[in-house]
């Protein structure tokens, strides 16, 4: 690279690593002119992405997602809840995104990362407004009986269901841990959360003596006197799964799926979330010195469309691998 430099500035006399640290913008400019990025990717290409379902044994659903070296571990635990009065036939979703100090030199213990609550909020907004999870499916005892029991409490005794209608719903608590932060955190976090949802199973439950809902493990189910109140484990049906792609706008370039270094050097980020039927779930551009024109926005959306196809395939493959096991 240095040899091809006719202008004779410092880069000719300096080691590449030193030049990269001292003049990061010029270092990137030099690459972008050649339509390539320092890690060898073309501008519009995302890094290699892998998914592993069921990474956490103690969780009801879990997944490990890697985009380049950015690593996210998502785990879902189910808890029993009473539905809110304004939506009596729905369960609930709570999402928490954590950045422990192991993930990045910027995060110190006791001083939580500024980005964490913002990404948490973005994730719950995206997942709730995409409608990927039907909250009505988070009902423990699906079907009419439970519904009736709710509508006519006085008739509850007539039915052989002792279940308290109030404790008939599940709240899915999604905890996402960033294990390695190297850019595009939201994309990786969303992917891991979606994958964990597709791995989630609603377990077989029964009621114990106190009327509390208890999970039956397979062998235990035969021994106990308590009859299971729902027939079998089931998965949630995910409709219109949202996938996202973050791009950097820099001069007239659009760089897909930036690394942490790229994010820190070129500050204008834009995140597009499309669902599997290509509806727009979110278009997020929080400021940045580069203005986005309609043509650039459309380019970002086109890149995201392409990425949705890639990610859909990766998710399908991960799920079919699970079924083989």
């Amino acid at each position, binding site marked *: 690279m240095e040899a091809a430099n006719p202008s004779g500035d410092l880069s000719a006399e300096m080691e590449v690593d030193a030049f990269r640290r001292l003049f990061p913008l010029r270092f990137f400019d030099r690459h972008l002119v050649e339509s390539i990025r320092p890690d060898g990717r073309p501008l519009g290409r995302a890094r290699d992405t892998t998914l592993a379902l069921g990474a*956490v044994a103690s969780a009801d659903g879990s997944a490990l997602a890697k985009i380049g070296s950015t690593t996210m571990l998502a785990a879902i635990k189910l808890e*029993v809840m009473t539905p809110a009065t304004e939506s009596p036939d729905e369960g609930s979703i709570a999402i928490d995104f954590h950045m422990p100090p*192991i993930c990045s030199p910027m995060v110190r213990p006791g001083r939580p990362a500024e980005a964490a609550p913002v990404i948490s909020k973005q994730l719950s907004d995206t997942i709730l407004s995409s409608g990927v999870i039907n909250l009505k499916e988070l009902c423990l005892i699906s079907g009419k009986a439970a519904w009736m029991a709710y509508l006519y409490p006085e008739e509850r005794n007539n039915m052989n269901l002792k279940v308290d209608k109030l404790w008939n719903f599940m709240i899915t*608590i999604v905890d996402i841990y960033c294990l390695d932060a190297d850019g595009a955190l939201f994309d990786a976090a969303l992917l891991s959360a979606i994958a964990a949802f597709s791995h989630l199973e609603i377990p077989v439950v029964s009621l114990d003596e106190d009327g509390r809902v208890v999970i039956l493990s397979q062998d235990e189910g035969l021994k106990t006197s308590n009859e299971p109140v729902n027939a079998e484990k089931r998965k949630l049906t995910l409709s219109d799964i949202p996938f996202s792609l973050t791009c950097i706008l820099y001069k007239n370039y659009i760089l897909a799926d930036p690394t942490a270094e790229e994010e820190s050097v070129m500050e204008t980020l834009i995140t597009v979330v499309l669902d599997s039927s290509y509806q727009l779930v979110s278009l997020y551009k929080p400021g940045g010195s580069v203005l986005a024109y309609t043509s650039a926005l459309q380019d970002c959306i086109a890149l995201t469309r392409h990425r949705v196809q890639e990610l859909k395939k990766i998710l399908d493959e991960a799920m079919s691998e699970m079924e083989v096991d």
Partner: protein
Amino acid sequence: MSGKGGSAPHPTTYSPSPQNQKRPKSLIFKDNVDWVRPDGRGFQHCRPAFLRTGAVNAASGSAYAEFGNTKVIVSVFGPRESKKAQMYSDIGRLNCNVSYTTFATPVRGQGADHKEFSSVLHKALEGAIILESFPKTTVDVFALVLESGGSDLPVVISCASLALADAGIRMYDLVTSVSVSCLGKNLVIDPIFEEENCQDGSLIIACMPSRNEVTQLTITGEWSTPKIHEAMQLCLDACAKLGMVMRSCLKETASSQE
């Protein structure tokens, strides 16, 4: 637009998981010599260990350790600038922190008292690091317990020394750590979560195997002197073996990089 759920403070909830801890099944055979451990191991057998360095790219050095169900990641940052409030120091500083994920334990968010773990980790490692080699600066050792399956602290300590080696921090030797639980008359090495819950006493040793030096020794609960001797010897032997496993893990990484 769906504005419901999510951020709204959800009503009180409970976990439907059966409470294993309420009825400990293992206690019945405390004094029975024929007792078999829940995972079928012999009393003096450690769990199979999986170790790998370079788990976190953002860190100067890192390691992942998996002992049975105990899964731990440790990242090392630095040597880097000390916090501004600290005074000049001829030797380097070591800063340790241990935290748990919310799903590490069967009931969400019931991580152990890891405040204490941070200081124990600090003490276990400090003696092995050549602090003179990085004056004025700080090395940060951060551990995250992904899943807690018993013997968490010894796994964190061993994993941390591996991460320090990966970061190229100069040490006198690797620190390896193993614990033993006393269950009635039996001594079991590398106890799992269920065994730790009904133990009478616990002994944790952190040592530098090639120098045969102990950096940290913690004994809690009820012990007799001969039992302590027996347990220490058990631990030291296991530490020596673990040291060899860790060494070969480092060699593998080094040779694969060439």
